[in-house]
């Protein structure tokens, strides 16, 4: 007892003496002089790093563009007065508890969060975001974000994408026999929600549902379940490793329905490269569609895709280490949205946390140069729902990220989905 007591007391004294003292004066948090600090909480290790690292790189490249080429935030200010952006990047390891710890680590020095990746993970820090009033850009497309005051949703929510896909099938005159394979978490469940709504709207039945766990390696069960129910259009709310396993198993079992996957289901490695194609390339070229937010293809420079041209230029200049990647685009685009919010805040003369929230709510009709649908927000839930237009892609190994456009559409049903209570 004695030992322990002494040591504890000693440790307490040492800690108190050695650590920094409380600041007596609170300044505008996250803004020091002419530098704005933004927080990033992203999975940089772990299986989700295939998404987190390129996404964060996209953030970094865009902000570097703002700092070096545009001179900083505040386009209407003279160059010396503009604000440079600094990032406080932390690794969430794709674990909600680590997300919370990292949030605690950086909350004292950031103006807003430029990236919080993961639906469950963002939910984990939601109570604190609300209390600390820190605006957060969620790098997930969950349909819950519009209901939140301090969360910025940039892309069309997952349910809407499935609804758009169903609309596409209806427009082509197809009477699909539908099934869904989904990951057993809130992302997967979001997909289910969307498909159920579409089923009601367009009058088809979901003949089979199957889930899988993220740690599975064998997918015979979900695939045979689809086959047994006679499904000819399978909606897929999965992640790349599972997509590969599911489609590979289907190929082996010579079962070839039309697969429709949400954006997280895809990764370039599923197709392989031109000289080292993956064994399932022929199968997925024939049978897989991916549906994402309406956006220009990588490298597409036609009219309406100026944002993509800017991205390609900046990618060459600042991001050469990052191969072309869908998530890089996503992160770049989100950083662009953050930039718009900050510009608005500077314009309104209020670079505090409250000011940033006000700026977010007053953003209207901002053109994203084809990188994203036009963005418009407002103080109510309905106004916070991002545009729901989607692009459907097919696999084409000759394209830079192996995706080639099939169609772009914006179904009224997708807009009608009850995102808000």
């Amino acid at each position, binding site marked *: *007892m004695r030992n*322990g007591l002494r040591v504890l007391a000693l440790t307490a004294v040492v800690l108190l003496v050695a650590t920094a003292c409380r600041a007596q004066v609170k300044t505008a948090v996250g803004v020091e002089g002419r530098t704005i600090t933004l927080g990033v909480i992203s999975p940089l290790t772990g299986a989700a790093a295939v998404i987190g690292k390129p996404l964060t790189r996209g953030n970094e490249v865009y902000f570097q563009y703002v700092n070096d080429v545009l001179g900083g935030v505040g386009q209407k200010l003279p160059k010396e007065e503009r604000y440079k952006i600094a990032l406080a990047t932390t690794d969430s390891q794709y674990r909600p508890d680590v997300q919370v710890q990292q949030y605690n680590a950086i909350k004292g020095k950031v103006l807003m969060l430029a990236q919080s990746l993961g639906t469950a993970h963002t939910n984990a820090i*939601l109570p604190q975001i609300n209390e600390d009033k820190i605006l957060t850009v969620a790098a997930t497309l969950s349909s819950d974000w519009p209901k939140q005051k301090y969360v910025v949703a940039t892309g069309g929510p997952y349910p809407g994408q499935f609804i758009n896909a169903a609309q596409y099938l209806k427009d082509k005159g197809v009477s699909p026999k539908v099934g869904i394979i989904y990951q057993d978490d809130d992302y997967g469940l979001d997909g289910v929600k969307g498909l159920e709504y579409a089923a009601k709207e367009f009058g088809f039945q979901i003949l089979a549902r199957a889930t899988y766990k993220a740690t599975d390696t064998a997918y015979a069960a979900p695939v045979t379940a689809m086959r047994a129910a006679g499904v000819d259009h399978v909606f897929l709310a999965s992640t790349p490793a599972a997509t590969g396993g599911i489609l590979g198993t289907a190929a082996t079992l010579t079962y070839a329905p039309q697969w429709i996957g949400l954006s997280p289901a895809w990764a370039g490695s599923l197709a392989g490269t031109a000289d080292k194609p993956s064994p399932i390339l022929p199968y997925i070229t024939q049978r897989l569609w991916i549906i994402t937010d309406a956006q220009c293809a990588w490298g597409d420079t036609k009219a309406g895709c100026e944002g993509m041209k800017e991205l390609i230029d900046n990618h060459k200049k600042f991001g050469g280490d990052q191969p072309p990647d869908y998530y890089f685009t996503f992160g770049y685009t989100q950083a662009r949205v953050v930039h718009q919010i900050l510009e608005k805040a500077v314009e309104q003369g209020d670079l505090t946390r409250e000011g940033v929230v006000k700026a977010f709510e007053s953003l209207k009709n901002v053109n994203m140069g084809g990188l994203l649908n036009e963005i418009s927000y407002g103080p109510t839930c309905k106004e916070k729902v991002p545009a729901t237009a989607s692009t459907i892609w097919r696999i084409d190994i000759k394209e830079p990220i192996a995706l080639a456009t099939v169609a772009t559409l914006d179904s009224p049903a997708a807009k009608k989905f009850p995102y808000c209570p």
Partner: protein
Amino acid sequence: MSRPEGLRTRYETELALLRHGADRVWVALLVAGVVVAPFLLEDFWLSVLTFTAIAAIGAIGLNLLTGFTGQVSLGHAFFLGLGAYAAAYLGGDLGLPVLVWLPGAGLLGALAGTLIGPFALRLRGLYLAIVTLGLVFLGEYLFSNLRSVTGGPQGRSVVSPRVGDLNFADLGALGLPLDREQSWFLFAVPILLVLAVAARNIVRSRPGRAFQAIRDREIAAVIIGVELARYKVAAFALSSFYAAVCGALLGSYVRHVTPASFDLFVSIQFVAMVIVGGVGTVYGSIFGALFIVLLPRVVEQLSPYLPLVSGASVGGGLTLAVVNQVIYGLLIIGFLVAEPLGLAGMWARLRLYFRTWPFSY
């Protein structure tokens, strides 16, 4: 003439918690430190210390089971999760005050421990370890599927510790100049101290000696009359109580729990706390918790000075995140190989060195 250490002439001195006048001074210092810390430390460090205090409760529990009784358990995360969800349900759905849900979560954990304990009677050593490993996976499955209580894979929010209108996590509302981090610190640390003293008392008394007898030589313990069944189950129940209390506090502090928050990695972290801190000592568990919680933060602060590590968050090679995890693993290995008694062992040796100086060889 000062008494040589260990020589006791009266029962009271043997049993007393604070043996010397000097001890009272140290206790006073400790208490003073705890009271004063919220006003001196930044929110960030207070948050780290609160995490430490809560984790230490769990570490003490695991030490009681593994360090004192020798029952290997990799399933600690399961009991933590049980406690957290119990707190969420009792405090949130049933609206009970913290004075009810905190002990309630603990008791639920103890109950679960009593059910698991009998397995230890049948299985030895490593087989028991694997079964407790199975508990973790079973826990994830249960937490994901009992949606009405646990909210499924999305998880659920957990309430703040309140009694009626008094919210221990927000003492500022009472008019005191305390924010959330300060309030939590002042709430969690006293709970740790109470539970640590309780553990120390258990260890020094008959059940504690029974536990250690089981750890050292099970068959010999049976021969001298230690009832194996009773004490093994008791060890599990006690350890699970502590784990559940830790989980409940953790859930309330972090405010949102998901099944993924209680996976194998969490179990390993607690085992690491026990190993690094020192198997078989209560204060060692607290050290271990401090070390394991502080480590990633310290590495982050030191990263500009470490060679080979790229400060960039992304990019290939040795990023900060990777270094953190590697150091973590190396620490576990290092302590086990070089210092099996952990930090407590190091401290004991340090004290011995100074006490016997200049004859420290």
